[in-house]
């Protein structure tokens, strides 16, 4: 995986999403099933291999925030949907940023609903690489309900950072929902910390969202920024 990072750095860009997902997979993260497609036809092929419904996401070195650029289409249920979405995604991205280099799209299985969490890494100027955990969506954006730990961290630290967020009861299970797989989040935190320690040229990581189920979890989206 070192080679992928070196190549991206040589090309003066960050990791593309397929590269980021590969890197995460190499560290044992459960990743949503996905394929790369460079045309509408390829996207249809990919979707039938994965199984419907699927999502399409733009793959471009120039687009960091895919949704803001109109580069994401959700819940696509058949070949016609996909072909139309492919055209539309490419068009919106070009409109958003005329000179964006577009590689194609990522076709990913539409994940079943679960509890969305985020996991990330930022570098603190004083304490170095810092892992962040929080509940996804409104919880992180509005309530800033997140916890941090400095590297290196222990499994106990990882569990504490999950337990200390205010929204923790949502993971323990409320209103008849079963408890979510907290062990899988702790494993994710430990994997992320190993990845960060072994890849010092990564500046920032944003895994948002990771969907957590009663058994297991799955990374749906990854952004890895290099130094």
């Amino acid at each position, binding site marked *: 995986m070192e080679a992928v990072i070196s190549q991206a750095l040589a090309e003066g860009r960050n990791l593309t999403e397929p590269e980021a997902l590969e890197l995460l997979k190499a560290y044992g993260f459960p990743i949503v099933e996905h394929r790369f497609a460079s045309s509408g036809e390829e996207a249809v092929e990919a979707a039938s291999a994965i199984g419907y419904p699927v999502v399409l996401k733009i793959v471009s070195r120039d687009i960091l925030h895919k949704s803001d650029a109109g580069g994401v289409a959700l819940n696509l249920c058949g070949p016609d949907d996909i072909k139309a979405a492919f055209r539309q995604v490419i068009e919106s991205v070009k409109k958003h940023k005329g000179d964006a280099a577009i590689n194609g799209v990522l076709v990913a299985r539409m994940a079943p609903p679960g509890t969305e969490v985020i996991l990330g890494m930022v570098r*603190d100027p*004083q*304490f170095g690489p810092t892992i962040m955990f929080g509940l996804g969506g409104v919880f992180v954006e509005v309530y800033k309900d*997140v916890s*941090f*730990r*400095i590297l290196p961290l222990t499994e106990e630290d990882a569990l504490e950072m999950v337990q200390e967020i205010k929204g923790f009861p949502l993971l323990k299970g409320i209103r008849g929902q079963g408890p979510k797989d907290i062990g899988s989040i702790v494993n994710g935190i430990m994997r992320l910390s190993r990845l960060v320690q072994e890849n010092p040229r990564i500046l920032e990581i944003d895994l948002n969202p990771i969907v957590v189920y009663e058994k297991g979890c799955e990374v749906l989206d990854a952004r890895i920024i290099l130094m």
Partner: protein
Amino acid sequence: MEQGASGSKSRDSLKAVFRPASIAVVGASANPEKWGFKILKNILDAGFQGPVYPINPKAGEILGLRSYRSVNEIEAQVDLAVVIIPAPAVPEAIEECGQKGIKGAIVITGGFSEAGPEGAELERRLAEIAARWGLRVVGPNCQGVNHPHHSLCASWPLIQDKGEMAIISQSGTIGAAFMDWASLDRLGFSAFVSLGNRADIDEADLIEYFSADGDTRVIALYLEGVKDGARFLEAARGCPKPIVVLKPGRTEQGRRAAESHTRSLAGRDEIYEAVFRQRRIHRASNLEELYDFSKALAYLPCPRGKKILIVTSSGGSGVLATDVAALEGLEVASLPGELAGRLRAELPSHFVISNPFDLTGDADARLYRKVVEAASPYYDAIVLIFGDPLPGASEVVTQEPPQVVIYLGGADVERRERELFHLKKIPVFPTPERGIRALSQLVKY
């Protein structure tokens, strides 16, 4: 100091600062208005056990001591220099100290990095010269070092009560207030170090030093920002003693104020919060808590769990204590049937057997003891609120199980009892909230 200089090497090099056998006061003055006079006088009045050499270009005699033009004129070995001369002259003075073989310096003078680019350059030179000679420096721009266990007060105010709490501070006044309270409480302190600009010695060095200092049981810090994150993490990891930190900068405005006060990079508060939790550091949210938490951690044994009984002579104080206890995650658990039965049989019938346990106007020291003795096997800690002039309170408290004493509303009797408690090294807290929050620190990690 480089990373490799941590641990015992760093500790040994600080001996010249904390346990010198002799001191030169560079910039000693015969003028009582000047710091060079006041600090020399404090060093003498604190009863320092070794020779003290005033250094002043005009020589003569200061406070009855022969004064020298330069440290080089002193024939005997000198361990520590206390430097109180204008900033531009400091680097050269440190150079002379190095030549003389002096291994520690406390630079009181300001006008260094806090004052602008020229000052920063002076500070850089000072640090470079000190490093070249292996001379360790506290400051510059600081309020000095007070180490009552070594009768060393190169600082102000002159407070000498020996105790077990070390206070390390980026603010002289906050350190002084801490010492003052500890002195009034007759608990004392083990050392005070004013960090100043941290040209050399920083909080990580001091955590390492006091981790191994036999007189210190708890390390209290007022910190506007760490100097070196990695070193701080390392020092805190290796420290077997409780550390309490008061770290302001929770707001953007506070961070800006900190940066202008000490040039500290105040950093993101949530990251500091994470660092403190990860290193099992107790975070105080104000100056009283810094003192209260330190006092509790230094003098109270750790309860086995979170189940507490509140015994009070004041109903209102019992309610306040219960509220805070619940907020802090302590369990104000009802009395087990066996204990309730026993107390019902032994106490007058009008007592309500509950937690908080209100002894009402009947309360006296003997009654507290009776309840505590009966309840001890059932609780992890007992909170005793003396809410009236209750003589003899200090005679009925033991530390098995841990007992937190809160005394208020007792006027002269309270003041006498508080002193008696403190002489027995049992801390007394002035309000239910402060006592309970201090107790919660004992079971936090």
